[in-house]
């Protein structure tokens, strides 16, 4: 049974000009020990999806649908129930470790604080756990690190500390929102390696949210591509990246700097801009930028089309239906 099953998740936010849906009827799941990547540009709803798992939607944000975690429904949790879930069952790390770690508290305090909250352990036992965690995330000289402050560490080290904090109570699911976007490429490689290791050692499920297809390719088992609050394509990572079938996914892959025409310096990009919250086009939201759009695309929401048992798209047109060699358009 899947660790996480999300069905028909809809997230509504309050904006200056009324209510707007940030996530629309989203369904996906994450298996135990599986790494799922959620990709999309800004405004795709990927972050709101993550926040709704933890009851962290912004003020006046509402979620409807179903989120089944480890066999029970958590969407309807009360504030207190969410507090018990956060950190203990589901943990989250963010893009900027500078702001997600408290600058004034030592590493020891931040690591042991919610450990002692969720499990009533003594200070000494918590300290030992903290040392182990720092060793797990490969922080050099863990004992000295405990009494240091976040500002004394580099960006990559801080992100490792954030991961250690997230792991303190042994959650089953780790949500990572753009975990390496702010890091240098060599540092990023270290974090990706660490996340891989954690999945192998602890059977940790990970939901990685990022727009970086390279990160997803290295790290994930499956990828879900989102656009304007809905899924457009999902499948096994290698299959999706080698044989993308939705025009948006194809466009994203073609826009990668490595994929443009060989002799040209010009980068390809999808025409137009992703839509803003509250202003999603009707029908299939991508139709305004899609070369293959038909008249019906702007009228009806696309239904799911299962290409294989593990690869599906939301596109009635399905313009790439003949199996073509990868790379050609």
């Amino acid at each position, binding site marked *: 049974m899947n660790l996480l099953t999300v069905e028909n998740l809809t997230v509504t936010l309050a904006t200056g000009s009324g209510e707007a849906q940030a996530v629309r009827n989203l369904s996906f799941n994450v298996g135990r020990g599986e790494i799922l990547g959620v990709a999309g540009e800004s405004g795709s709803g990927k972050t709101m999806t993550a926040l709704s798992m933890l009851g962290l939607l912004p003020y006046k944000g509402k979620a409807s649908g179903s989120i089944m975690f480890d066999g029970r429904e958590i969407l309807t949790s009360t504030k207190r129930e969410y507090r018990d879930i956060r950190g203990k069952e589901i943990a989250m790390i963010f893009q900027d470790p500078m702001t997600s770690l408290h600058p004034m508290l030592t590493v020891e305090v931040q690591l042991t604080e919610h450990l002692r909250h969720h499990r009533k352990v003594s200070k000494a036992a918590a300290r030992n756990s903290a040392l182990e965690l720092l060793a797990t995330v490969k922080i050099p000289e863990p004992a000295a690190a405990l009494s240091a402050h976040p500002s004394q560490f580099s960006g990559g080290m801080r992100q490792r500390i954030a991961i250690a904090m997230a792991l303190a109570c042994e959650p089953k699911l780790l949500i990572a929102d753009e975990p390496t976007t702010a890091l240098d490429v060599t540092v990023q490689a270290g974090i990706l390696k660490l996340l891989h290791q954690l999945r192998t050692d602890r059977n940790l499920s990970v939901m990685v949210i990022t727009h970086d297809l390279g990160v997803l*390719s290295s790290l994930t088992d499956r990828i879900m591509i989102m656009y304007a609050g809905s899924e457009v394509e999902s499948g096994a990572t290698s299959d999706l990246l080698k044989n993308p079938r939705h025009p948006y996914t194809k466009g994203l892959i073609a826009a990668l700097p490595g994929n443009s025409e060989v002799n040209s310096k010009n980068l390809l990009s999808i025409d137009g801009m992703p839509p803003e919250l509250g202003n999603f086009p009707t029908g299939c939201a991508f139709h305004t930028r899609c070369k293959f759009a038909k008249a019906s695309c702007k009228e009806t929401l696309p239904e799911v089309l299962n290409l294989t048992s593990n690869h599906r798209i939301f596109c009635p047109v399905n313009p790439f239906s003949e199996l073509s060699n990868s790379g050609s358009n």
Partner: protein
Amino acid sequence: MKEILNLKNVAVEYDRHGRKVRAVAGVDLTLNSGEILGLVGESGCGKSTLGKAIVGILSPITGEIVFDGQKVKKLTRGKRPDHFRNLQMVFQDPYGSLNPRRKIGMQIADGLIVAGMSKKLALVKAADLLEKVGLPRNAVDRFAHQFSGGQRQRISIARALAAAPTAIIADEPISALDTSSQAQVANLLVNLVDEFDMGMVFISHDLSIVRRISDRVAVMYLGKIVEVGTVDQIWNNPSHPYTRALISAIPHADGTSFMPKDLPGDVPNPMSPPSGCRFHPRCPLAKPECSGNEPELRRLADGRDVSCVLQTAGSQPVTLTLN
């Protein structure tokens, strides 16, 4: 192709909490007109500081920077000498690079008015420049907040173009933009370099984009240049261990099981750099002599420069094999 910028032994310091940090510790570099030189390196390598020193925002404490035959001087309170107005900069932050309270047209026209053009004519030319960067002419009467990040960067580019630059230092010009805008602005810069035969130093941490648009690439580590070569040379056969580590760490978005390789350790504090070769504590191929003398930049047979004892001047590059 003419050499438009020449840096020799440039070192730049700045003050941090009262202590001097040598962010750039002796750099040699050249830029030719019509070429895009990518300047890459990770946080703390000094590439942004170097960019600022090239245009004169910061002053080098040693070495000299020669632009089109003249030594670059630091910006003063007076008017910048006419000769150097052809050396311009595009900045990273699209929000701080335009004055929120002045009309866009006037900000672009500044470069022309200062050179003696009448305000009326300058505004017409400003509209021309806006068209050239892909924006409507009537943008001259609008204000910065009415434009997106990508559009603001294009306006900043138009402003730089008003000075008819022969060299542009672009300091992370697309890093703060979303993916679609990044492609558009990068393409614009490439086309302008081609059209006006400018030289451009493209400072960036995004190696994939650098690979696509650059002709040559210079790699920096902790204030020094470790390797300079053509894009193909750098990517296909990096001759410095750091360059190799950098290239191996780039993820591939191809759905294969390629895992980017990490580089253990941290960048040392620039206030107390390692002895000898600055990279040696983290280098998997380090030899005992690497902690002794700092290796100089040497020219290899294929035209590239590299500072590593494993490479011999005048010879073909030795292919590095790391475990």
